[in-house]
């Protein structure tokens, strides 16, 4: 089980702040494209990804039990 935290407008588009996916192992990039298939409205191209509160790169592996956060940069000020 992989826990996914959605921030800012991602949360709004998916309709909930958290998701759980039954997966054993997947890369960051693969997880993004999986989610994009399920939720075509969301755009994960320029979001930052944290795995267990640590910055993650596209080909980093995510394992069952990990918590993934997708953080869209907001621009206002």
């Amino acid at each position: 089980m992989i826990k996914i935290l959605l921030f800012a407008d991602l949360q709004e588009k998916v309709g909930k702040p958290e998701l759980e996916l039954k997966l054993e192992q997947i890369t960051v990039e693969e997880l993004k494209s999986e989610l994009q298939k399920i939720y075509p409205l969301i755009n994960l191209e320029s979001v930052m990804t944290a795995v267990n509160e640590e910055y993650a790169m596209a080909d980093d592996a995510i394992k069952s039990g990990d918590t993934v956060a997708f953080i869209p940069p907001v621009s206002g000020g």
Partner: protein
Amino acid sequence: MVDRYSRQMLFKPIGEDGQLKILNKHVLILGCGALGSANAENLARAGVGKLTLIDRDYVELSNLQRQQLYTEKDVHEQVPKAIAAKKRLLEINREVNIDAYVLDATPISLVPLLNDIDIVIDATDNFDTRLMMNDLLQKYQIPWIFGSCVGSTGMSYTILPKETPCLGCLLDRAPMSGATCDSVGIISPAVQMVVAHQTTEALKLLVEDKDSLRTNLVTFDLWNNYYHTMNVERAKKENCPTCGENPSFPHFSGEVSTKSEVLCGRNTVQIRTGRKVNLQELANRLQYVAPININDFLLSLEYESYRLVFFHDGRTLIHGTNSIEKAKTIYYQLAG
């Protein structure tokens, strides 16, 4: 001094030594909107020696809900934000030396203002300017504190040249970023929360307490009750064009910088970002702002007294003004 700053000096990590340092430091605040106003007020009250304020815009009624230095009188008189901010800050603390500049932040306009600046606070409203700053401040080796907010959310991160990952390391590509304050709104506590992080980091830098700096990127949502920190140490890229071994400073040198020009005789300004734009995505975001017209080639909408036309190739025409400053303000309000 003793009385005025006594409560701050009683705070052990600052103390009398720290206060003396604060009184002799120079902070540049880029942008005098919500983040800029609140950071400037905090630092003026804290007794910072000198503030340089930069903003291209003037005060409007919709600013007053969150931009704490401004008044209805400033709206009525259409006072430039940097000027209105300086006036109010001097009422709060006339011992602070304040330089206010009404100008558009570009490498050319900023470089002469960087002399003796100790830190820069990011109070801009778009990533084009932030990535330009990221290059500029890396080149001139000035620490800066990124901050941004929208809705009930915000983020902040402290960047030390040559030490921490830079903003470019964290962003794989420049976000044609979703939400802006003008498309999905903003509540003032989100501003205050970002500012609380930015001013605290600024104070740590001003008293030279580097060990206490927050090294992670913080993201929060006050309405939905989360606070998330991300350790970013491993994000630093050796080949980063900004902070890597052979930097080319692409956003500073003009390689990918935004270009704006007035189209003669048309009362129109063209802005070119050099980034492809997904028009359908933009339409989804702006649908609550104004009625959208979209076809295979362009998206257009009426906003206030202006008409904006966005093209796929990253060009935008802003009809109804000959002012590049005004056009950029409108553009970033909508496109982010």
